[in-house]
């Protein structure tokens, strides 16, 4: 395969390539909701698959959840199987604040982020003493406990117990949002425009607005986490993961940074919880049990632990793989109908296959393809 030719890192061509890449990404992110505002459902081998905007929004929430898990597990190497606990706490905190104090969804982040950060730090304190697999065990058990805490008699009135909690607030697009105008413009484009509806119904408008809101929150999260990880903190965390002894010898305060990583991880997880609550307008105790904890680990590994864009792939995978497998009613060439929990089995198989052939996850695969097609020659730092 012939690539685009080697460009030196940091050169003008390299910059241009990066800018084009990001522009394409932005274009896709902006166009998608209008293209699938009516659920996009291609038919492959007689099976109808759907790519709903709602599912995509939920996947964005999952991406942020995996991003948070990535900080504790992917970057600083502490096996946390209980991340769903933080996500669930964030979701319930948002639900209760919105319902009882009539806050807006986004303003609950002002409580969720610091609250979950503190909570994560408290959680990280025992994790200093309990290491490796013992920590994995403990966090797994904690994840399993979350639903029963929600169902406790003492808090049942607030959390809705087993029935879950309907959040009494709708996200309605503000009147200044030009969603309909944009839709009409897109509809007017010849060729592509036929995929875009003529105008948005109020339900579609709400879905599109929600999507953009979630995308913005997610982008802010990814940007902040990227900045944290690119600096002193990130290096310290990676050093702790790769060689704790060496990190300590070089002056990294292990206790402080490990605790900090749990704090940040929990805070980001809490934001993910808020996003999931925004998405569905409903929180239920069993959504955030250990099934979700395992799913998040699957997403982390499939996407690529210790990378940021891995979280994006992981979030899409854990949302859409089970969905599509349940929509696969006939396999081509056979009469077998896929009924039952095939989706979970496929995710499990995917997990094992990824560990076998691509231990760095999808992110590693992308990096390899990119290195083949658009090689960049590293340059020594100047000065």
């Amino acid at each position, binding site marked *: 395969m012939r690539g685009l030719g080697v460009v030196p890192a940091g050169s003008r061509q390299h910059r241009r390539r990066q800018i084009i890449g990001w522009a394409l990404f932005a274009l896709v992110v902006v166009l998608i909701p209008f293209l699938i505002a009516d659920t996009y459902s291609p038919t492959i081998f007689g099976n109808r698959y759907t790519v709903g905007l709602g599912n995509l929004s939920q996947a964005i929430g999952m991406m942020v959840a995996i991003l948070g898990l990535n900080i504790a597990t992917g970057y600083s190497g502490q096996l946390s199987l209980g991340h769903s606990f933080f996500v669930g706490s964030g979701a319930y905190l948002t639900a209760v604040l919105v319902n009882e104090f009539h806050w807006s969804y986004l303003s609950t982040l002002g409580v969720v982020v610091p609250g979950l950060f503190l909570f994560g730090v408290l959680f990280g304190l025992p994790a200093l003493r309990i290491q490796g*697999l013992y920590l994995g065990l*403990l966090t797994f*058990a904690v994840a*399993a406990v979350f639903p029963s805490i929600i169902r406790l008699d003492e808090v049942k009135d607030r959390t809705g117990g087993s029935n879950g909690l309907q959040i009494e607030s709708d996200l309605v697009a503000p009147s200044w949002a030009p969603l309909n105008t944009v839709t009409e413009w897109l509809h007017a484009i010849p060729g592509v425009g036929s995929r875009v509806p003529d105008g948005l119904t109020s339900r579609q408008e709400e879905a599109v607005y929600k999507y953009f809101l979630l995308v913005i929150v997610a982008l802010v999260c990814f940007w902040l986490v990227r900045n944290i990880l690119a600096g002193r903190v990130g290096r310290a965390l990676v050093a702790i993961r790769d060689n704790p002894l060496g990190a300590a010898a070089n002056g990294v305060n292990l206790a402080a940074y490990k605790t900090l990583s749990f704090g940040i991880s929990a805070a980001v997880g809490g934001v993910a919880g808020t996003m999931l609550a925004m998405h569905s307008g409903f929180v239920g105790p069993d959504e955030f049990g250990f099934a979700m904890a395992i799913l998040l680990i699957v997403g982390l590994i499939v996407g690529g632990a210790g990378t940021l864009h891995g979280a994006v792939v992981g979030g899409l995978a854990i949302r859409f793989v089970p969905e599509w497998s349940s929509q696969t009613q006939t396999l081509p060439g056979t009469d077998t109908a896929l009924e*039952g929990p095939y989706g*979970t089995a496929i995710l*499990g198989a*995917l*997990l*094992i296959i990824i560990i076998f052939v691509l231990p760095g996850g999808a992110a590693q695969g992308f990096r390899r393809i990119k290195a083949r097609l658009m090689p960049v020659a590293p340059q020594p730092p100047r000065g």
Partner: protein
Amino acid sequence: MVVLASVLGVFDISLDKLSNGELWLAQFFRGLSDGATYASVALALVMIYKSTGFINFAQGSLALLGVYLAYIFSVEQGLPVALAVVCAMVASAVVAAFIERVFIRPFPPDHVLPLVIVTLGLLLIIDSAVGIVWGFRTRSLPSMFPSGAPIEWGIAQLTWRTIGNLGTVFTVVGLLYLLLSRTKVGLAFRAVSSNLESARLVGIRVGPTLGFGWALAAAIGTLGGALVVPDLLLEPSIMLRVLIFSLAAAALGGLDSMVGAVIGGLVVGLARNLLVTFLDLSELALATAVAVILVVLLVRPTGLFGSTRVERV
């Protein structure tokens, strides 16, 4: 006195309940029975951890598969329950040895995290495969032990099942001890778990030995499952709950101690039944187990009987 009264008030404890000896005894017996079942699955976890240094999160799923096989052999094929359980133990041992050969052995044994992830993948696959093949209908598996209770004390009954569960676990531990200390396979197993490299250098075939460990662990886990299930109903998610209590038991006792697994199992079983009854925490059965491990691990990070790893700093 005031403090005591307020503590009792907070937890909604009535003195009637506390002074009810029969209730204590009844819950004590139930705790022993539950504890014995947790202990046997915890034993299986410890076997794997001892030899390979990681936790097999698919242990519960292997046991689930085994219990379903036992159900097929006994209820559908009409074998006596005890014989069916033995057949299921053999079958799940074969499956586990196969899994070890195909999914576990290709990985370098000193790198633990990928292996843990693989076992998580196996958990997802086996659990959903059981759901696909046998469906989500609940079934009931008869117990291996006769019903009825030889000793009764009001509402407190020491049933044959409790005696059988405890007896089975102690027999298994005894046999394991004999196997590990008196046979050549056991010697090889201990050598591999104490130092893999040196074991390989003196000519022990490490791979088959570890495969043997997996097979044995799966058989013990299946036996544990066959002890648990008659108390509950058989359905595909049943072993996940058991797995969590067993993980708690193993962590409590120390992940590399067999005695620890048994004691941990009994403690978790008792804690679960006694605390839940007397503190009135029916929703918090799981949370009490977690609280117990958290406290123990904070004081002793490698469990009660686990060997402390010496680190050179």
